[in-house]
């Protein structure tokens, strides 16, 4: 039994990391590390072991360790995943390859440049713009359970950007607004309390909006929060097509 416990602690897995140090490499190279691990260790903990004991120069982002901050997304075995909720044991006895999130420029090692995403996030008014101003005395804005259900799942987004790493259309042309931001945009548009739908729909209709999506659907598969961005995007294709045809018959010009 003691022997069993020993082998348990002695297990070792090979982690291949795509390194990129701009001051010494012109393009990324793989570097391999042997990391001892236990069953309860996540890939993030494996990387932390490397940084603490094997190679202090390794760079990666992380914060909460419990799948809510959205910082530690990376390509693990070629699939976009949160490294804090992916376990080393799932890959043993094989090796794990860890790379920076696909489709984003690599800043250094596993750290990407996400300015494009942040810029898009800021551009969509990601907050409720009250449809009708209310005073405190008038009380809260009431919603039915059905109205809540219209946007609830889309509000689960933690901005981890796994869906962007899963979206080939974003990889091929980063002008496409992309799954996560379009889902968040829909979260506010679908909220019965919100009154800014009209201005947000300008982006939805545009070249960079929903029509950049070809329904690959991988964004919804990799989402760690069950947001289903593909559904948000494609619901808005219907809305956008309606607007295109209705602008000929409605005085306001469109189904906004």
């Amino acid at each position, binding site marked *: 039994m003691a022997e069993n416990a020993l082998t348990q602690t002695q297990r070792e897995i090979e982690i291949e990391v795509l390194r990129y140090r701009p001051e010494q490499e012109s393009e990324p190279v793989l570097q391999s590390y042997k990391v001892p691990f236990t069953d309860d260790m996540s890939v993030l903990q494996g990387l932390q072991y490397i940084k603490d004991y094997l190679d202090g120069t390794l760079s990666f982002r992380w914060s909460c360790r419990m799948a809510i901050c959205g910082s530690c997304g990376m390509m693990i075995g070629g699939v976009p995943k949160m490294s804090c909720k992916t376990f080393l044991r799932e890959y043993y006895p094989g090796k794990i390859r860890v790379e920076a999130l696909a489709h984003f*420029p690599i800043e250094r090692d596993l750290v990407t440049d996400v300015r494009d995403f942040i810029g898009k996030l800021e551009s969509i008014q990601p907050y409720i713009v009250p449809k009708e101003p209310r005073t405190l005395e008038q009380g809260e804005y009431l919603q039915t359970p059905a109205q809540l*259900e219209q946007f609830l799942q889309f509000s689960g987004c933690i901005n981890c950007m796994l869906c962007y790493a899963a979206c080939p259309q974003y*990889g091929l042309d980063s002008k496409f607004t992309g799954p996560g931001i379009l889902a968040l945009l829909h979260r506010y548009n679908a909220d019965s309390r919100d009154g800014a739908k009209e201005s947000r729909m300008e982006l939805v209709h545009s070249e960079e909006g929903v029509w950049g999506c070809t329904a690959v659907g991988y964004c919804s598969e990799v989402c760690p929060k069950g947001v289903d961005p593909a559904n948000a995007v494609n619901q808005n294709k219907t809305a956008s097509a309606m607007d295109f045809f209705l602008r000929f018959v409605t005085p306001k010009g469109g189904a906004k």
Partner: protein
Amino acid sequence: MSARRTYMRPMDGWWRRDPFFVRYMAREATAVLVVLYALVLLVGVVRLGQGQAAYEGWLQALKSPASIALHLVLLAVFLYHTWSWFNIMPKTMPLILPNGKRLSPAVVTGTGLAAAAVVCLALVIAAMKVAS
């Protein structure tokens, strides 16, 4: 001056990177074969317009081994096309909320496939009635 020098990875061969992308490309490629089958039917309509002899010739051509092989391939492609269509459907339609809860994707896909099967069966039965 910033010392930043980011690296952008190339997208060459992106669809071979993940089995999910391969299935996606297969789904998109089935559309080409759907067009091919539409052309086969269109040729039939044109031949019908050219008179009985031309139409009989077209029917005869359909019975050649090459044509039968093509139709078997087309059948397989259409089955995949149908499955992939209803598989993505839960992601492309507005939320359906019976009892205030979202309908499960499996129900949407299953209903679609069942409807497709029923319609195909009805068409086959109707065609056999007309033929007999």
